[in-house]
């Protein structure tokens, strides 16, 4: 569909100059315009009946003028999004070793279950008698989460991990308030996810960093020095973001409790210990669980997630609404809490679609399979660590948990940075590991293979990294290769400075096919 006077691929000139093809395409790699540049008036991808012929009751508020949305047929829409999809890396296409993100296999059975009539299509405000099955899903999942964590209660409504952190801190704040205790400080290690301090700030707390020891764990002496009557809680990730289990965790819990504070655990790394260790046995008061990590609900390019929070005896009364209880006529939904509940965190009852997927995953694994998940994910990460420690620089002695942390010492004086190394992996067909996080080591590379990978797959990955490490160290013209990487992708390195300096956050009419003036961008 190439109408005169308009290119179907904006900047085709620039593209073809790069690719040498007339279209700018490269075989199966298609250039794709924005949807607004493809569509035009007078076309639609849906077939709707005529609206009833009635006098409107809009009180004179009918929209004047056009919205500006393009019109496309169904085949155009499908082709557009299929072409877009082909520009994405995904778990289904290859190993996705993003540390802290647990990019495990997303079983399709879960997708099927979430779409069952009677589950995927029920309304949150239907009379409770007509949604007993939906409440049963929530209740069953809550049961699994409580058993796996050894905790007496769980708040189901948080919509993601960071939302779960917020829920946990709100519960802690409510518990402190209930005993007439106002505290101002939260302690969090420097290796914490950025969400931890951001969450603490939302709850009005200041954040005080806890130093780590040389072996990557909480420094107990420093912790003791920081504790005091104004500390509300510690936020600790365990296993921590360096991929290590906090071996003094029970001591930490005792110290925190002795100071009258609470122990919040960031459960992002629960995959390493699911079925193997119960956080409830370690003295934790609240912990969120990312269902989109440990329990395989798809990451979806950035959500939706789900972040239920398990709570200890000391916090179990301070839950958000709503929650499910067993009543005399079956399951009931408590939508308006008692005085202890700190309130509501979002519309309705939580991420039901994710609950179904997570529960299907749990049932598929069973208690035995989940324990195996922890073991295999830890085994794979340690195998990666053992297989690379002679050519890359591990930040800490093993054993690690489900992710292995390296830093950039092995690249010292090569002219190759962590970023260059990551980008070179892309040309080799891998999504890079998490880079520059955690902040406690220089040029961090955090590798999490997950239990989904076969040994062959991990071996191939290791071989690739060994090859790249050797190439980087060999120097010479290799350095230019690293600095130019990636070269085989739909796009090469993007100008992030330009994007931030003069933000273009939407398409506007008239910007159609306007070639971007590279000189002006300098």
């Amino acid at each position, binding site marked *: 569909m190439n109408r005169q006077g308009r290119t179907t691929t904006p900047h085709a000139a620039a593209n073809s100059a790069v690719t040498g093809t007339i279209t700018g395409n490269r075989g199966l790699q298609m250039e794709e315009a924005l949807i607004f540049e493809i569509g035009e008036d007078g076309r639609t991808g849906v077939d709707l009946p005529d609206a*009833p012929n009635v006098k409107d009751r809009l009180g004179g508020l009918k929209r004047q003028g056009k919205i500006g949305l393009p019109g496309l047929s169904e085949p155009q829409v499908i082709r557009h999004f299929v072409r877009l999809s082909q520009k994405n890396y995904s778990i289904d296409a290859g190993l996705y070793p993003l540390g802290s993100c647990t990019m495990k296999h997303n079983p399709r059975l879960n997708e099927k279950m979430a779409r069952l009539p009677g589950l995927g299509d029920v309304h949150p405000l239907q009379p409770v008698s007509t949604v007993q099955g939906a409440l049963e899903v929530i209740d069953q999942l809550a049961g699994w989460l409580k058993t796996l964590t050894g905790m007496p209660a769980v708040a189901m409504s948080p919509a993601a991990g960071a939302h779960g952190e917020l829920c946990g801190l709100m519960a802690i704040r409510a518990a402190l308030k209930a005993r007439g205790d106002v505290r101002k400080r939260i302690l969090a290690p420097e290796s914490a996810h950025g969400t931890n301090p951001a969450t603490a700030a939302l709850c009005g707390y200041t954040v005080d960093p806890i130093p780590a020891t040389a072996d990557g764990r909480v420094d107990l002496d420093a912790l003791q020095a920081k504790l005091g009557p104004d500390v509300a809680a510690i936020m600790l990730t365990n296993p921590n973001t360096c991929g290590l289990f906090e071996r003094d965790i029970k001591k930490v819990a005792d110290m925190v409790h002795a100071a009258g504070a609470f122990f919040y655990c960031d459960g992002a790394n629960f995959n390493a210990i699911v079925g193997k260790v119960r956080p409830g046995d370690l003295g934790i008061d609240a912990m969120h669980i990312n269902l989109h990590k440990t329990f395989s609900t798809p990451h979806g390019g950035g959500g939706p997630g789900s972040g239920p929070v398990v709570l200890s005896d000391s916090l179990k009364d301070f839950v958000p609404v709503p929650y499910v209880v067993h009543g005399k006529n079956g399951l009931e939904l408590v939508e308006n809490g008692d005085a202890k509940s700190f309130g509501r965190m979002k519309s309705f009852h939580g991420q039901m679609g994710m609950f179904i997927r997570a529960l299907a995953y749990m049932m598929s694994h069973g208690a035995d399979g989940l324990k195996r998940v922890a073991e295999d994910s830890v085994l794979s990460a340690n195998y990666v660590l053992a297989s690379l420690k002679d050519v890359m620089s591990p930040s800490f002695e093993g054993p690690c948990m489900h992710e292995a942390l390296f830093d950039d010492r092995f690249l010292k004086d090569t002219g190759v940075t962590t970023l260059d190394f990551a980008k070179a992996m892309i040309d080799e067909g891998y999504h890079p590991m998490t880079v520059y996080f955690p902040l406690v080591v220089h040029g961090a590379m955090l590798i999490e293979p997950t239990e989904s990978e076969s040994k062959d797959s991990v071996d191939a990955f290791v071989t690739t990294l060994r090859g790249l490490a050797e190439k980087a160290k060999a120097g010479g013209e290799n350095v230019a290769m690293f600095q130019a990487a990636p070269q085989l992708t739909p796009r090469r390195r993007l100008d992030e400075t330009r994007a931030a300096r003069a933000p273009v956050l939407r398409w506007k009419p008239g910007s159609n096919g306007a070639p971007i003036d590279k000189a002006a961008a300098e």
Partner: protein
Amino acid sequence: MRYLGLTEADRHEMLETIGVPGIDALFKDVPAGALNPRLDLPPHQGELEVERAFAAMAKKNVSPMDVPFFLGAGAYRHHIPAAVDHLIQRSEFLTSYTPYQPEISQGTLQYLFEFQTQVSMITGMEVANASMYDGATSAAEAVLMAQRITKRSKAVLSGGLHPHYRDTVATLMDQTDQPHVAAPVDLAGNEDLSTLIDDQTACVVVQNPSVFGQLRDLTSLARACQAKGALLVVAVTEITSLGLITPPGAMGADIVVAEGQSIGVPLSFGGPYVGLFATREKYVRQMPGRLCGETVDQDGRRGFVLTLSAREQHIRREKATSNICTNSGLCALAFTIHMSLLGEAGLTKLAEINHGKAVQLAEKLSQLKGVAIVPQAFYNEFAITLPQPAASVVEKLVEKKILGGVPASRLFPGDKSLENVLLVTVTETNTEGDMDKLVAALKEVL
């Protein structure tokens, strides 16, 4: 276990490479006694068994597909074209991560850019972010953003605001003891909020159409806000309404927050949904959440990246505009695809059908003895007053296999003035037969 990649032989070989005798040696840092607890949970099951278990649970629910259905109040049943669900299940969309490596995430980044554009267009605003959890959390974040911009603390919440939105805002504000004034319940939609705006007011949050269905012109409220230096936050729970009615942007809104579920996202018992968040360009650096921006690559070709991340938690930590990390990417994609299929003509027509059918039902219901339609102007949902408590009427309708609406008492428990109020919603999915069944059943039970 069908999802695990390692064989026994692999495990053995890997342990040898690592140089440990067994798996538990890798867990040596776990405190004594805490390793390998006995778990009272069933063992692994095959697909067939899991399917059976879920089918049994699904059977215990009444599916909206099977009965005349008139529920809304923040979540709406609309028809989703088959192409939407097919496309969002493509591996490359479903099983990818947040697009932190732009060279191999252009698919996700481009649809986010398209999503932001569509959201800006329909809300009548200049810019939009790449999604929030849902409409209510968007509203709470909008209040925080208004506080940052105005350097004031108070929020005024309309009496027509969905209680879930009101409560989500309140919960977040309570954390830092911020003042918020919830105006009295406004069934008729004639509240005057301008009297509540003072020089400490950061923003006014008002929903249009209101939770009771009332459509209002917000232009004068926007002016009142502006005169006092407060921002106007407009919440929209039924986004298809903007296919037909004047968008908040054209009425002078400073921030628009909305629930995008109506476009492309199934009801799914309340989540996951997709929060929309749009504002003026000048406030962009105060926005929460992810933003996708256009740029060029090394070869000068157009591409997209996540941008202005200095606002976000992973860069700014405790000074971030929000703690949000994971948002609603895949729901945003569903929204974008459905909106692309609709286009200008489709969205307009869809909204006309919704409104037309609602007008038809309102006329039929108003013929019933003791029933009155509350809002003067509405889109596709409206409150009605009944001669008896709405909750018991709804239960009686359930016995007749009709899901007749949401009793206001479900959202406003304990408010005697709303005991007899029922919220009724009509969409393109309702047939004339459905409406006639509802009217006939109501005639019997009232």
